[in-house]
């Protein structure tokens, strides 16, 4: 069902019945799901999916695997706690929520731009290394810094506003808020991928040298992509801090940073639906793996799942679905799909050529 929506991504507003079905399901979900499933599973998956979407956008369309997207989201979460109100008594300047949120998102976008400017002169694995270093450095920084970031403890008591008589942290309104944000960015990324900027970005991914020869500025394309990705991650970060009600260094720790990568890769970097698929799988596994194995060993399970996907299906669950579908529907067209899959394969596209 999801996969079909992903595949028909060529016409997001189109007439594909599978899309309608998904839309109806997502809109009606809180009506039949319990509060736990609406909030802890539904809303949380949408938030993580949105953060991972920013990585998918960078990696899938831009060929830049940035591990700092969680850091960007976490930065927005910290800004909410620092400029808004919190119950810890450190910082908490008490600015109105709309101003804080706007500054948090803009700040996250600018931080992402800065990270992009640092790493965009390098390619491929260098980008991974530099962004990972930045992410870990940010984690150690917020943990050490008590003046602004309140160190190890972090902040608690960060509340979403009560607006139009609705308390936005109640499961149902919060779910719809997350759904609206996720859907907005999903379609924005789809639309953006076919804009001239998006096409330019994909050209940069496929062959930076040729693009440069055409007179297009490779560096600025990459940095602008980081700006957009930062805005997406930052918005999700605002939702995340409202979801948790608190923010501490653990939120931007290596575990979470890697989790976002895991979500994006498990889902598939080929289409913007991928991160949401990955997020649903991840959150379900996180909540229900406890029934199968010791909760303590969750990381082993998720690590193994990640390893298996990377080893055997580099294009994630989306790739699994596409292969299964093509095998069922078009046994003869397998070769064709194979060729197509190769062309879309982000690995071959984004691994830097040795010159």
């Amino acid at each position: 069902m999801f996969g079909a929506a992903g595949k028909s991504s060529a016409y997001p507003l189109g007439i594909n019945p599978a899309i309608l079905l998904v839309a109806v399901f997502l809109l009606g979900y809180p009506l039949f799901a319990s509060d736990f499933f609406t909030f802890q599973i539904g809303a949380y998956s949408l938030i993580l999916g949105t953060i991972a979407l920013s990585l998918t956008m960078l990696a899938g369309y831009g060929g830049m695997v940035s591990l700092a997207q969680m850091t960007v989201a976490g930065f927005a979460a910290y800004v909410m706690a620092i400029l808004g109100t919190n119950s810890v008594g450190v910082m908490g300047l008490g600015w109105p929520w709309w101003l804080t949120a706007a500054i948090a998102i803009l700040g996250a976008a600018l931080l992402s731009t800065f990270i992009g400017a640092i790493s965009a002169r390098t390619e491929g694995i260098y980008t991974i290394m530099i962004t990972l270093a930045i992410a870990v450095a940010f984690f150690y920084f917020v943990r050490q810094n008590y003046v602004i970031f309140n160190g190890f403890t972090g902040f608690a008591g960060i509340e979403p506003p009560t607006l139009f008589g609705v308390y936005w942290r109640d499961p149902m309104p919060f779910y719809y808020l997350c759904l609206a944000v996720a859907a907005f960015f999903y379609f924005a990324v789809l639309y953006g991928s076919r804009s001239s900027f998006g096409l330019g970005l994909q050209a940069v991914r496929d062959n930076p040298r040729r693009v440069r020869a055409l007179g297009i500025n490779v560096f600025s394309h990459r940095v602008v992509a980081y700006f957009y990705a930062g805005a997406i991650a930052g918005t999700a970060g605002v939702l995340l801090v409202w979801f948790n009600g608190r923010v501490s260094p653990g939120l931007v720790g290596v575990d979470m940073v890697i989790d976002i990568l895991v979500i994006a890769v498990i889902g598939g970097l080929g289409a913007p639906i991928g991160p949401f698929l990955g997020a649903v799988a991840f959150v379900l596994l996180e909540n229900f793996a406890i029934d199968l194995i010791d909760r303590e060993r969750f990381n082993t399970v998720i690590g193994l799942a990640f390893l298996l996907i990377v080893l055997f299906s580099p294009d994630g669950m989306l790739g699994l679905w596409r292969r299964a579908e093509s095998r069922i529907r078009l046994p003869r067209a397998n070769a064709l799909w194979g060729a197509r899959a190769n062309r879309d394969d982000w690995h071959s596209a984004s691994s830097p050529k040795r010159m």
Partner: protein
Amino acid sequence: MQRRTLVVLGVVLFAAALLWLIFAVWPDWLIDAIGRKKTFVTTLLNGVTLGGLYFLVASGFTLVFGLMRNVNLAHGSMYLLGGYIGYEVAEATGSWFFGLAVAFLVIAVSGILLQVAIFRRMEGDELRQTLVTIGISIIAADLMLAVWTGTTYQFDTPEGLYGAVVLPVISVIKSSGAPVFIKYPMYRLTVLGVAVAVGIGLWVFLNRTRVGMMVRAGVNDREMLAASGVNVQLVFALVFAIGAGLAGFAGVVGGTALSIAPGEDIRYLLASLVVVIVGGLGSVTGAAIGALLIGLAEQFGLAYFPTYAVVLTFVIMVGVLAIRPQGIMGTR
């Protein structure tokens, strides 16, 4: 020519100032400005020894990358696993040196396994190799947590390396006129010595032996080396074994100087990453320079402005990337 003269002049002046700071008895105004001399000298030595430890970890990382273009993000896990294994063996046999040897060997073998089972199967697919090593490090961290729990382990310092040495550096002169000398732990100085020895050993290995020649040839042009009749896979396995083994070795050496606990894998992975980004990927000399810079930055940051210590490391990395994206000694 002019510029070079200026650079040399700068280096000489800097070295002279540093020597003066170390050996002279500080006047009062200097103590008022930057604190006691003892803090400064101890921080300097801490930084240099930490740099030595970082070099031990990062040199393996950079060696593997230089030859095979494999970014092994499980390198930190190898450090931690080496520490744990060394600890178990040292506890069981009572010999620290035996633990060190076993840690080196076991991690070297695990490196070969990784190379044969994973990297060889996806040669040239760098991004995928990187992702696989991330997966491995997630699992490894979790399994190590299961086996060794969250406890912090501390090695017993080996016999003969215990205690402190008195350095020929005067910190203050007492009012009675008797000089007070600065003391420093013997073991930490040994760490520095080991790092220097490993650095020289690697240099000799790479520049003065036949296998080292093959390694350097492989760095420049892998296909040409294979075409001239060298078993490249064997060279790869050997280099991977040395690189991984050094991580395990560093795990015991570093675990004794500091301690081993969950989370150390990430710390040393970060250190390796920053060191090779600053020093230049693939260059052992670069790793030495980078390790020294980062070790000093970290210790001086911790001593003089604790809440912003990480920022200093970060600023060095960004500064180097802005001026030389390929790192100080890196080549493209």
